């Protein structure tokens, strides 16, 4: 296998910046460990504030513009480097995933084979309410696109989309007013959705949708135990086990389970 070629061809990119409240780096290390098992032979690059030995390469990046995560009280959140992914990624085809998206199968590998230049989730499966739905963005009629798992290829249109994304983050107060969003927390999902809407002249984005739902454990679900094969979760209905890729929103409990 030509490693050099595959490094340039396609790969997975993660972002990891620790805050005073949360050591994202520990979650990132677990995410890399799971990726190595379930998606082997794919290069992994981390853009972050420290070196990751388990990654193929680390891009040491300055702390991104500070943000506030205000679910369950305000917390510092350094999540805004994602908009720079186009410039940072060395790959022709990149899948960015959030560190709290734990990979327990190889379905994201299908995204690399697609001819589409951007693919992201629109529908989500909420395990707490056992519902599958799309989420509207603020008071607009736009369906929110999730930036949690995002495949993109390097081409002019995608570069323009990332320019719109950066512009949206920089001018978030304006867009928050326009679409009725929370002005205190810059949400990447919204900035990405706005960028995609702008690049499509607010037309349909059906061509850019990953055709399965993003399985999500919301804030009400706690992580009880985590292994490389499955994750045990608990909510008001009791304990349950998941052995497929899942997005964990309760980061504190995820970190506790990893430690």
């Amino acid at each position, binding site marked *: 296998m030509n490693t050099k070629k595959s490094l340039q061809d396609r790969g997975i990119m993660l972002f990891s910046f620790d805050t005073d409240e949360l050591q994202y780096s520990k979650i990132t290390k677990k995410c890399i460990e799971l990726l190595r098992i379930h998606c082997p032979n794919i290069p992994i690059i981390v853009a972050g504030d420290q070196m990751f030995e388990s990654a193929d390469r680390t891009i040491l990046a300055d702390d991104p513009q500070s943000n506030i995560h205000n679910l369950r009280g305000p917390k510092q959140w350094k999540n805004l480097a994602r908009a720079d992914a186009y410039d940072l990624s060395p790959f022709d085809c990149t899948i960015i995933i959030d560190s709290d998206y734990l990979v327990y199968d190889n*379905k994201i590998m*299908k995204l690399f084979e697609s001819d589409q230049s951007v693919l992201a989730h629109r529908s989500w499966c909420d395990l707490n309410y056992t519902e599958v739905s799309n989420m509207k963005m603020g008071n607009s009629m736009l369906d929110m696109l999730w930036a949690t798992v995002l495949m993109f290829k390097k081409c002019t249109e995608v570069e323009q989309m990332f320019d719109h994304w950066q512009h949206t983050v920089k001018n978030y107060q304006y867009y928050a007013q326009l679409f009725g969003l929370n002005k205190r927390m810059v949400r990447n999902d919204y900035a990405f959705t706005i960028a995609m809407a702008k690049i499509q002249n607010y037309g349909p984005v059906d061509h850019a949708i990953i055709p399965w739902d993003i399985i999500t454990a919301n804030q009400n679900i706690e992580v009880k135990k985590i292994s490389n094969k499955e994750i045990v979760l608990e909510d008001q209905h009791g304990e349950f086990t998941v052995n497929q890729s899942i997005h964990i929103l309760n980061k504190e409990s995820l970190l506790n389970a990893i430690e």
Partner: protein
Amino acid sequence: MSSKQRFKLKRDLLLLEQRVKSQEVFVYNGSMHRADATTVAYAQTIQDNMIIIDINKTPCMIENADDFRRTLKLKHNEILNEYNNEYQKIIAR
């Protein structure tokens, strides 16, 4: 069956459906298709070099219809077998 057990059953079946939903997607010459009953039936009408619409509403040419049908049926059967096995495990709990 208690309400908690009923909810657990509902959630386990939802997770199984989710697994099937993602597994039945396959990429054929760069376009994404779903190996479900509808596509299996539709594939019977496809001939070589016909254009079909993929999941992402993008047109794509199927150069070799037999090869497409073979891939589709294989995937469909594989998924249904797994669905059946997992379904039996869940309802037996």
